[in-house]
């Protein structure tokens, strides 16, 4: 047998090798796996969303019911009526006192309505011109560009007529 025919024979046999039986079935089986896992993960995601939504809805729905349960609880009947001042014993000291809740014993007087006392405002809240003419005016304050005539300036002779 010549060299070339031997090469041809080897290549022919190499290129016509038969695959093991059931190759297509195994490939198809392998292709099913990603699709199944995808569908399972989708189902899981949808069910997780449904559970989360259910929990949220039930929490909203049960909240007033829970509140009413608290109000109808026998222990809740002894609670002071709304309007009476709550008296809480001051912290006795010790560890954690600084971060404890401090409730004033006497009622705190209500401050008068605060007025705008920022920059460029009087104590009553009115806008005032700053001392320096070069200083920028606060927003919303209008001022004439030319100085107004004062009474101390004597009138010109022509103006008397």
């Amino acid at each position: 047998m010549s060299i070339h025919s031997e090469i041809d024979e080897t290549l022919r046999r190499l290129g016509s090798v038969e695959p093991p039986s059931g190759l297509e079935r195994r490939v198809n089986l392998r292709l099913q796996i990603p699709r199944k896992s995808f569908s399972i993960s989708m189902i899981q995601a949808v069910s997780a969303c449904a559970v989360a939504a259910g929990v949220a809805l039930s929490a909203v729905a049960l909240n007033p019911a829970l509140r009413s349960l608290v109000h109808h609880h026998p222990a809740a009947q002894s609670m002071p009526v709304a309007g009476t001042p709550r008296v809480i014993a001051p912290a006795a000291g010790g560890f954690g006192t600084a971060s404890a809740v401090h409730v004033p014993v006497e009622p705190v007087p209500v401050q008068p309505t605060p007025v705008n006392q920022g920059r460029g405002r009087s104590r009553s809240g009115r806008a005032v011109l700053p001392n320096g003419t070069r200083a920028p005016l606060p927003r919303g304050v209008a001022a004439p560009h030319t100085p107004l005539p004062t009474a101390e300036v004597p009138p010109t002779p022509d103006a008397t007529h």
Partner: protein
Amino acid sequence: MAKPEQDTHAQVTALVEEYSTTLYRVAYSVTRNSADAEDVVQETFLRVLRHRNKLAEVRDYRVWLVRIAWNLVLDRKRRAKTRPQADDFEDLARILPAGDLSAEKMVITAQRHARILRLIETLPAREREVLLLSAVKELSTVEIALILKTTESTIRSRLYRARHALAALLEQEGTLP
């Protein structure tokens, strides 16, 4: 909603039925190992499934699939850095002629094939690749040119050079047993 997905899957299943053997032969020509060749076939179709949105654009499925399998098998070979298992008798027996050969003749034939396959591995990469693809009986020269993204005349000249180089190597080693 699920109908296009089912259609695509049916299309891929049809491709598996039609082209698995060709892809197996392409992969086997490089790996010379049955399990590795089957892995390449499976990986090829997984890639197809991953890029199923491109299925409508494909003109020639055979060329497209063989190109995917070819790239996968070359990549696998590059990573493995190992020679094909040409001396594995169990796999080598797959390319032996079937029939009523005596045990002695079987051994001689296996040695011849193993020797030629070993020498093919020593050829330059471009010539070796063309030679191996030309061995796959389903592939024409035009298709090999499309798979390797070159011209048909280039394929023919590489094939000519490969065959002559292989013959020269065999002559150098001595006469065939």
